[in-house]
């Protein structure tokens, strides 16, 4: 069932637009944003390859179980806590940005909390399901939304109004030294691989993750499109004036024979699905990490009856979103999302280092158990969750 792994890669890659990654890169387009892109592709691919190789050694185990196996209880709980914060915040930022954008373009006369309420109810319901249902929902929502999203992206790329000279001018800035914040932000496109932290629970012993070359391919494509297409439509200078950069870019497209001629509305509707998908996954992961801190809740991936705690945790997350929406504004949300993008990168790096350490410890303990060591002992001994 390796396709479920790649679904995460695809939708997180597409979500970079709601995470304000293109806005950040475009604001640094003349100060090192372009050279950060190839670096981010290299770093993101490396992290994705390393973590996926490590997770393959622990089939059927999520990150909390791996922590429990190698670390003392208090440290495992602490690390779970970091996971809860980073995953839940990601969902909260996306939910807020999305309901804000919808409020702006669909119905500015409505109270923004109504949009938020409707989305939050859907997210609570979706995230509180068991991991297996969440995984299946991923597939369904993605199959519903991606064909049209790819169509919009293709339509944008083939538009005669796309100015390739402007794209070239910005691409030529690649010689500038990379800016750190653009680099951290751009690696977000590859973050989908990180969702294996929880969904590794659903893997079967001895699974092999094939076709991993898809990860750099998809990530590079999304990153280049979400950065260069707005520049092609708005020119090298005016592109910096827009706040909702991708909403405005899709508004430059026209469907002459579509029953709504503004592509913007179709685009926002499709991103409703993607945002729901993203928030569902992040909140679900945060919820499961929270439950892993208590011995009362052993990991269970298939639960026909949803335990009450799932509801409580998700409702609490929704309440935090409301509190956040009350205290924040566009500018603060922008700052928080930048902070989130940077801290996420460092947490990914730390996590990768920890996983490598765990793999090393695992191998050591296996060798010790097999003492006296055989000289022909293959180091790639299959790790079957004993």
């Amino acid at each position: 069932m390796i396709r479920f792994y790649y679904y995460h890669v695809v939708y997180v890659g597409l979500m970079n637009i709601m995470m304000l990654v293109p806005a950040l890169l475009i604001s640094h387009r003349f100060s090192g944003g372009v050279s950060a892109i190839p670096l981010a592709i290299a770093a993101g691919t490396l992290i994705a390859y390393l973590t996926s190789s490590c997770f393959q050694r622990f089939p059927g185990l999520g990150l909390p179980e791996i922590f429990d196996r190698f670390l003392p209880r208090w440290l495992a709980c602490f690390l779970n806590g970091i996971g809860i914060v980073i995953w839940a915040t990601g969902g909260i930022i996306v939910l807020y940005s999305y309901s804000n954008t919808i409020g702006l373009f669909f119905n500015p006369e409505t109270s923004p909390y109504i949009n938020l309420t409707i989305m939050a109810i859907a997210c609570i319901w979706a995230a509180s399901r068991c991991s297996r249902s969440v995984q299946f929902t991923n597939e369904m929502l993605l199959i519903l939304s991606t064909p049209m999203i790819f169509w919009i992206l293709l339509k944008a790329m083939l538009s005669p109004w796309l100015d390739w000279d402007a794209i070239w001018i910005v691409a030529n800035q690649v010689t500038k030294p990379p800016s750190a914040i653009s680099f951290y932000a751009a690696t977000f496109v590859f973050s989908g691989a990180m969702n294996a932290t929880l969904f590794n629970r659903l893997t079967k012993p001895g699974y092999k993750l094939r076709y991993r070359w898809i990860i750099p391919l998809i990530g590079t494509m999304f990153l280049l499109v979400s950065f260069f297409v707005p520049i092609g439509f708005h020119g090298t200078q005016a592109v910096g004036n827009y706040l909702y950069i991708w909403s405005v870019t899709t508004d430059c497209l026209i469907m002459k024979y579509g029953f709504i001629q503004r592509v913007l509305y179709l685009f926002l509707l499709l991103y409703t699905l993607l945002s729901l998908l993203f928030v569902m996954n992040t909140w679900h992961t945060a919820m499961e990490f929270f439950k892993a801190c208590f011995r009362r809740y052993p990991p269970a991936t298939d639960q026909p009856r949803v335990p009450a705690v799932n509801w409580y945790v998700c409702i609490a997350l929704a309440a935090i979103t409301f509190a956040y929406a009350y205290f924040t504004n566009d500018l603060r949300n922008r700052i928080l999302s930048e902070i989130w993008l940077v801290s996420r990168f460092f947490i990914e790096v730390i996590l990768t280092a920890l996983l490598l350490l765990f793999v090393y410890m695992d191998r050591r303990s296996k060798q010790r158990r097999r003492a006296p060591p055989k000289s022909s002992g293959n180091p790639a001994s299959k790790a079957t969750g004993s």
Partner: protein
Amino acid sequence: MRRTCVGWLLLALLVLPLGGCQLKDIDKRFFVVSAGFDQTDDPEKPYRVTLRLALTSSKVEAGTAHAQVETVDAASIAEAVRHLKSNVDKELEFGHCREFVFGRGMLEKQGFQDAMQWLARRRDIQGVSNIMVGDPDAASILHTKPISERYPGNALFLTFGNEGTEASDTVTEYMFDLYRREYETGLDPILPVARSSQHAYQINRVALLDKNKIRLILNPEETQVFNMTANDIRKAVMAMPSEKGRIVMAVTRLRSWITMVGGTDPKVVLHVRATGFLEQSPPRVLEADWHGLERRMGKRFSESTEQLLYKIRDQGVDPYGFGLHYLAIHRGRQKAWEHWKSIYPDIRFEVRTDVKIQGTGMVR
């Protein structure tokens, strides 16, 4: 049991926002179909905003479209629109407004940047709105009642793009493109010029602007050449006189691109590749000298285009984006833009036109 109750309660919550969505219904809205901005002589209230409001009716038939035109003067466009609301009984809705007309007087004296500020900020104004210059002013365009209109405002937007007519001398300019050209280095704004004639619009000229004001208005022939070479518009014609009569080729495919030759003293080369068939010609001219005719036609087109390019260059504007292309191919040079600005007034042009005639139509 308890679980089902909670589920129903949650579902019931969804009913709450249905109670209206705080949204005004369609019968309480006035749909603005086109808007015009002019300048007044009053320094206190320099802006005159004219809105064409659709009077909705159930009939969709040519000539049955009715509209109400409202005008108000104010200190800014945003204020004018607010004041205008007190003249009408319904809420103004800009979501369907795709035509914005800038008065020629405003563009010559004051420029379009203030009006653009308002357009770019409004979330309900489409990026693909058509912008044009109203000659002599915007109000006259909005007061025109075209008899072919099926519903209010559709005659004007069918003119642009290739939605309705595909006229080769109508330049289409979208709002997002005007905004790009307003800020871009090495690419200057263009706007089609509309004139009202009795019961129709005549849109066959283009105004070339610097970053704010009109510098040059091309005549219909020049506009067609400009549209062919800058926008790759098809369905145009290339004409040439000969001893026996005029030879006219209908262009079916057209592609143009820019290259630059020469290092420090560059020359701009505009390549045009046109394919088409003869629509009007004296009999058996093509058979006699097929390649010669193609060559002569290309040469003639190149000459008229070169003339146009020099005319545009002498006004100091760059609607083709030659400067942008220069910047794109001279990377890493900080002073490229300064250098370009210094050489552009004396730059040389060469147009290379490659004409391919596919046939002579139904007869020889």
